[in-house]
């Protein structure tokens, strides 16, 4: 039986049948073995027989060891649950997981980026989690609103957010100093930012290296797009909106940074971050995940601030890691109950996770003293209400490459911003139409 055929009412009904309100019972009811004893108590403890859980993710960077440490601690605190963590490169992971689900070898728990949830849900890779959220008493107020809302596809929840990783503005204090700028007050609006770039240029410093590559060129573009009141898609997710007024303004601003000589032309991948680490540039719009990289560079005197407001309002691109439960060919009640305990436990410990360069999604963790002690993370967390995530649409990943190409062509000065964007939008419109037919 397919889970998605359950209406909310019948799921509630099932929940009511099971003492303790275990959502896992409802999940496993599809497998026909829902009448076993309830082994979890509100998702916080698990008293059943010993189970092994598989947990897959793509944490190949500095985040991997942090998560592994958390998993080990979880194992040592839970005698009857043993979690085995397996890490793949994200690209490999995204290809392996559906194949594993198809062949019945899927792990119980996985991590997915929030922009992949809708596609994975539509393809039947992951399970709806509303009942898990209910059982864990998780609600919007427990999480940052934008990330909680972005985990919903077709009115069902598919991800329990672990973190948020937005773009921020790193600034090199030494370089700002050398141009006579206040290294403790980085610019926060368009005029101040332009003045700073101008002052740096006078001192022969290219203040912001504008990269034409997805990391972080198209993330910069998306941030500015939202700042200029544009969006990736129209609000009904049916047509591209990125080539509209907001998109053109955003991309024109980026191209002007290059044209006005505030950035070298034709920058290579990651060269912007390398230049920043070598005191060759003042500003680097980059992800929060770079905090530990920059902290590890000897002699680098840096700070981080929310993205300056270049457009009409504040906005910044962000992504988020989400816990997902993978569809099993033969669901096991005990494993599902244990999975829930695991997700809940890690989610509560996410201040440890924040140290790897993340903002915890969970409000209680974000408002804790321990998180406040993480200076850089806390600064970037002030952007929360301005964060934007990719539209929750199946197949949104097929649209993004066209935006990336447009940004690349425009920043390399090969096409006018408006032309690059409208070419991309033409193709994106076709893809959206194809995907509507495919995913319904």
């Amino acid at each position, binding site marked *: 039986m397919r889970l998605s055929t359950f209406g909310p009412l019948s799921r509630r009904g099932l929940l009511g049948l099971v003492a303790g309100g275990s959502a896992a019972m409802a999940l496993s009811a599809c497998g026909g073995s829902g009448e076993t004893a309830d082994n979890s108590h509100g998702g916080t403890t698990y008293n059943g027989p010993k189970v092994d859980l598989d947990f897959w993710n793509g944490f190949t960077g500095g985040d991997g060891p942090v998560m592994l440490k958390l998993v080990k601690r979880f194992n040592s605190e839970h005698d009857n649950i043993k979690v085995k963590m397996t890490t793949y490169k994200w690209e490999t992971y*995204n*290809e392996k997981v*559906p*194949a594993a*689900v*198809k062949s019945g070898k899927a792990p119980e728990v996985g991590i997915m980026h929030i922009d992949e949830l809708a*596609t994975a849900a539509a*393809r*039947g*890779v992951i399970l709806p989690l509303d009942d898990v959220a209910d059982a864990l008493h998780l609600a919007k107020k427990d999480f940052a609103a934008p990330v909680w809302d972005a985990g919903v596809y077709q009115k069902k929840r598919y991800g329990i957010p672990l973190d948020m990783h937005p773009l921020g503005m790193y600034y090199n204090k030494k370089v700002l100093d050398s141009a006579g700028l206040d290294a403790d007050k980085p610019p926060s609006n368009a005029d101040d930012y332009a003045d700073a770039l101008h002052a740096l240029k006078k001192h022969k410093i290219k203040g912001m*290296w504008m990269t*034409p*590559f*997805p990391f972080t060129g198209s993330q910069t573009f998306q941030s500015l797009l939202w700042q200029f009141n544009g969006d990736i898609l129209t609000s009904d997710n049916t047509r591209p909106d990125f080539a509209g007024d907001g998109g053109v303004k955003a991309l024109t601003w980026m191209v002007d940074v290059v044209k006005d000589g505030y950035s*070298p*032309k*034709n*920058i*290579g*991948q*990651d*060269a912007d971050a*390398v*230049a920043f680490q*070598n005191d060759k540039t003042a500003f680097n719009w980059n992800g929060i995940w770079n905090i530990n990289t920059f902290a590890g560079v000897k002699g680098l005197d840096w700070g981080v601030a929310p993205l300056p407001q270049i457009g009409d309002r504040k906005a910044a691109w962000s992504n988020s890691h989400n816990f997902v439960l993978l569809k099993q060919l033969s669901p096991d009640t005990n494993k599902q109950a244990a999975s829930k305990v695991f997700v809940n436990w890690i989610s509560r410990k996410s201040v440890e996770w924040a140290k790897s360069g993340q903002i915890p999604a969970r409000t209680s963790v974000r408002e804790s003293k321990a998180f406040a002690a993480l200076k850089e993370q806390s600064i970037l967390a002030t952007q929360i209400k301005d964060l934007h995530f990719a539209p929750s649409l199946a*197949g949104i*990943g*097929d649209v993004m*490459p066209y935006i990336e*190409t447009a940004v*690349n*062509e425009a920043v*390399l000065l*090969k*096409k006018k911003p408006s032309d690059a964007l409208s070419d991309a939008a033409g*193709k994106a419109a*076709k*893809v959206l139409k*194809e995907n509507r037919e*495919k995913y319904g």
Partner: protein
Amino acid sequence: MAERNRTRHTGRFTPYLFLAPYLLLFGTFVAAPIVFGVWISLHEWDYMLPNKPWAGLSNYTDLFDPDSLDFDDFWQSMRATGIFTVASVPFLVVIPLGIALLLHRRFPGRNLFRALYFAPYVLGVAVVGLLWRYLLDPDVGAVNFVAGLIGLPDHTAWVNSLPWAWIGLVAMTVWWTLGFNAVIYLAGLQDVPAELHEAASIDGAGVWHRFWHVTLPGLRPVMAFVVTITILASANMFGQSYLVTDGSPGKDTRTAIMYIAQEGLRGFKMGNAAAMGFVLALMLAVVSILNFRLMRYKE
């Protein structure tokens, strides 16, 4: 009649029995996937979706319809593959031959040099890609730095402008894979009979004449093999573009395999991707047949 008797003696199925293990592997891992691939290419195929609508030949006809979504991108990627193949194959055929000739001579430290030239080939594409991404970086890369030191232009955009991106990609590929072709040539050189060289010397042929009239004809079958596998390897180029240029500028260096992977594995349009794969494979088959015909050893 003696011939037939012997055949009977060993049994009619003997050759097939000997071939069976390989046939089994070939059938399982080559023939069956190809047939399945054709089947996929006739559908809108996403293996996770229960509904895989029959598409007939539309995945193929779309590739030849200028109004379709894939037309521009597919042929642009085929063009990129073509450019890379045409630009890289001559270097990958000639330079390793020169190196093999040098390494064929007797001199102290010969084995060390043989190992050195082969060494890059053992590296994975991820290592090579990352290494060259930084070497070729326009602003912080070593190549431009050294070029500047010796008075050449020091701001060539190796990874995101044309033709420099192609030059960079070809150069890194030659550096990376020349050792493999050199080893094959080296083996071939050892098969050229020494008596022929001797006889030619006695007839008064110089070094150049001996190379042209003895070594090269002796290497002909090896050469045909090297040219063919090099064309196929270059036409399958993926990792270099993927890692070093990310298809930039625009998508000019996005190769066919890169586009097929994006369509099939990221966009889950396996039907489209399979059709593109077959078109590419068919073109490569034609090129390979032509190549073997042209280089066929003439008695």
